């Protein structure tokens, strides 16, 4: 199963959810609703792209939600302390990158498993966020800054294009170029497939793993900034809880294999969109919201089953091809 096939599959699912929901409740196509879905997709999509980088190496980043929480806590504290907004945002992003570097170094230098390292991160950063804020709800009043998440630079008809879409576009295009076209991206995919072989071929495996975790945490911090600006009032104990799971789900739904070495940025963005659409249709179709997790989980499970089924069929075809190659070998 190639990645392109998976992306097509998830696109098909997206179209199906859109049509079904729109058919069942025409309010789905209202500008307000679409703006909301697109804006949310953008925020979660950025987290999903981050998650994709760690997953592509064959690892996992469970700390995303807590990095979101910590970033969303530090940002208003810096602004309240009088730090100029651009400097505050930059500072939060730097902290994110630094946390990612620590994850990467613990994985490559100390030899810990990504699951353990980032699980500890999940617990530690949540604790830090709650402690430094005293568990108090924090607010951001800087409306100019908040428009980065809530504003709309222009409209198409009655549809006000949400500002985060542009951030997602920038992040997505850069990430896609990085992963799909650059030498570094090729190295990341190669080491995700077979770290030993990549090392033997001279790929700087350790350095690239650190890069992957830096990108993951950096994008989580960016997501944290945007979520903070979007909501405007942040509860450090709850902000970003479970977001790592949304991010990982989007990445997996979008075609990233947890075995590593496989992933498409476009797929991840589509995956994030499907997640948000499902949530949206639960609301619009009047399905009890208690079922939200169950429905998302069910769709993810069905996706995984479909993927595995196609994989098995492809595997059989490959075995046949191999046998054919061998018989050509011996006859020539």
């Amino acid at each position, binding site marked *: 199963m190639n990645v392109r096939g998976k992306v097509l599959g998830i696109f098909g699912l997206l179209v199906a959810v859109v049509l079904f929901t729109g058919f069942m409740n025409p309010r789905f196509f209202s500008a307000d609703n679409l703006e909301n879905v697109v804006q949310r997709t953008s925020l979660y999509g950025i987290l999903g792209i981050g998650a994709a980088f760690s997953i592509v190496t064959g690892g996992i980043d469970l700390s995303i939600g807590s990095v979101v929480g910590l970033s969303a806590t530090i940002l208003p504290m810096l602004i309240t302390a009088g730090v100029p907004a651009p400097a505050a945002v930059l500072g939060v992003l730097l902290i994110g990158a630094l946390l990612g570097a620590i994850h990467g170094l613990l994985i490559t230098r100390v030899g810990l498993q990504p699951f353990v390292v980032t699980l500890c991160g999940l617990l530690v950063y949540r604790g830090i966020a709650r402690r430094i804020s005293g568990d108090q709800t924090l607010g951001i009043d800087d409306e100019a800054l908040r428009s980065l998440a809530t504003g709309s630079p222009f409209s198409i008809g009655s549809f006000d294009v949400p500002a985060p879409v542009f951030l997602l576009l920038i992040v997505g295009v850069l990430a896609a*170029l990085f992963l799909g*076209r*650059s*030498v*570094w991206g*090729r*190295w990341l*995919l*190669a080491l995700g*497939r*077979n770290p*030993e*072989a*990549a*090392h*033997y*071929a*001279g*790929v*700087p495996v350790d350095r690239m793993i650190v890069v992957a975790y830096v990108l993951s945490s950096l994008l989580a911090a960016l997501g944290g900034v945007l979520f903070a600006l979007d909501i405007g009032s942040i509860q450090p104990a709850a902000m970003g809880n479970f977001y790592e799971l949304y991010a990982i789900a989007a990445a997996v739904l979008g075609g990233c294999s947890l075995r590593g*070495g*496989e992933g498409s940025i476009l797929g991840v963005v589509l995956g994030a969109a499907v997640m948000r659409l499902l949530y949206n249709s639960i609301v619009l179709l009047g399905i009890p919201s208690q079922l939200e997790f169950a429905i998302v989980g069910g769709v993810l499970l069905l996706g995984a089953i479909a993927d595995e089924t196609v994989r098995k069929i492809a595997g*059989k*075809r*490959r*075995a*046949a*091809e*191999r*046998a*054919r*190659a*061998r*018989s*050509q*070998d*011996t*006859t*020539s």
Partner: protein
Amino acid sequence: MAAERAGTGARGTLRLRVEGLTRRFPGVLALDGVGLEGRPGEVLGVVGENGAGKSTLMKILAGIDAPDGGAMELDGASWAPRTPREAADGGVALIHQELCLAENLSVAANIALGREPTRMGFVDRDAAREMAREALGTVRAAIDPDAIVEGLSAGERQLVEIAKGLAGGAKVVIFDEPTSSLTAGESEALFDVVRELRDQGVLVLYVSHRLHEITDLCDRAAVLRDGRNAAALEGSELNRSALVQAMVGRAESELVSPTAAVPRASTAPRLSARGLRTADWPAASLDIDVAPGEIVGIAGLVGAGRTELLETIFGLRAAVAGDLSLDGAPFIPDGPRAAIASGVALVPEDRKLHGLLLEESIRWNVALATLTARRRGPFVDTAAERSVVEERSSALGVRASSIEQPTGTLSGGNQQKVVIGRWLEARPRLLLLDEPTRGVDVGAREEIYRILEELCAEGLSVLFASSDLEELLRLGQRILVMHEGELTGNVARADADERLLMTLATGGDALAPTTSLEANP
């Protein structure tokens, strides 16, 4: 009873009969009407190049795969196992090429795996231990049933694997490349087990690429080619050249190319190692020279330190002490990247683990080590990559539908060419190869030798390690021999033969004439 069984192995009483067996995979006929007959108390060799159908046949006999047509009989009754379980219960045991033991469990637990004796729903450990002891006894293995598999040597694991197969009361035991991970001593022990099984009246099917094992061990041999019976050899007909001829369908003499003359340059050696001590054998100090254009082989038993030496030169392992130089300039390999930058490349022993990205294309795999050399800004130059790989792949004669074909679908020989191609693309001065043709069939083997010889005629130096004496004598212009980390021999090809290499490799006194090793303090 054993002798009795063996005695009744006269014509007529067949243990196993296979007739007209076919197995079709989409697009290819893996087995095309194959027949096979085996009697109790017989060792039957099954040989053929990769893809000849041996593995498919063995898998069908052992219930891993099912045939599309044909008939199989075991002791006169129809034989159609649907699962490996069913095959084992019926008396056909397949000893896997790659040992499949649960390393964290005890020997007894492994042997009893899947047929654990129980008492009131719980595993009866005493009975399992007894079962293991009995099975180990049949292969005369002095292994503690309570030992954890992790702590066993490759040879002991092999014996456990065999015992596991026998615990079901096997009538037919299939060995699939059993010696590929064994030392020479362990192989000898295995041959004794095979003979023991034969004397007990078991029919042994013995699959191997190592032809001398077939000629030494087997009573008869069935040769497969392209999924058909190519020949059945026994008695005086069962010799190496007849086997090779039947396997490849042409005489061996046509395969062997004239060996290139030894190019002797009077310039500085391409590689020079002085007092090199590897981390694995720190007590052994190695002095090695390889001239430009020279092909030097390293002989030695498994564990003699050959892989460690090559990986140290390539920078995968840190040397404890010693100086290396390349063309007279000091060379400090502190990692594969540094080695590659200095013009040193390594084709590793295990190409699936250390060589290839099996899911990825030929293009990706060949390009992997030289991405930065072709990049345009930060990006991979895909167009240049395509033409470079296209050219390299056709120069090496890689047989594939296109360079986009995943390497996992290629045959062993073509996979090895892809790995070699990757390193030739890096334009090395010194090419290190660890077991250059493991799992590569005879025809492709000869192609690889020829490619290396051509490149050496152009000035490339090659240092390769091999367990295959034929290969060492065929390819190496000079052969170094290692034993427990030390160099115990340095022999020109003209002076070398298999016996001398084996003697030196086992630490026997170097009765080598003028060629015993220079200087080991």
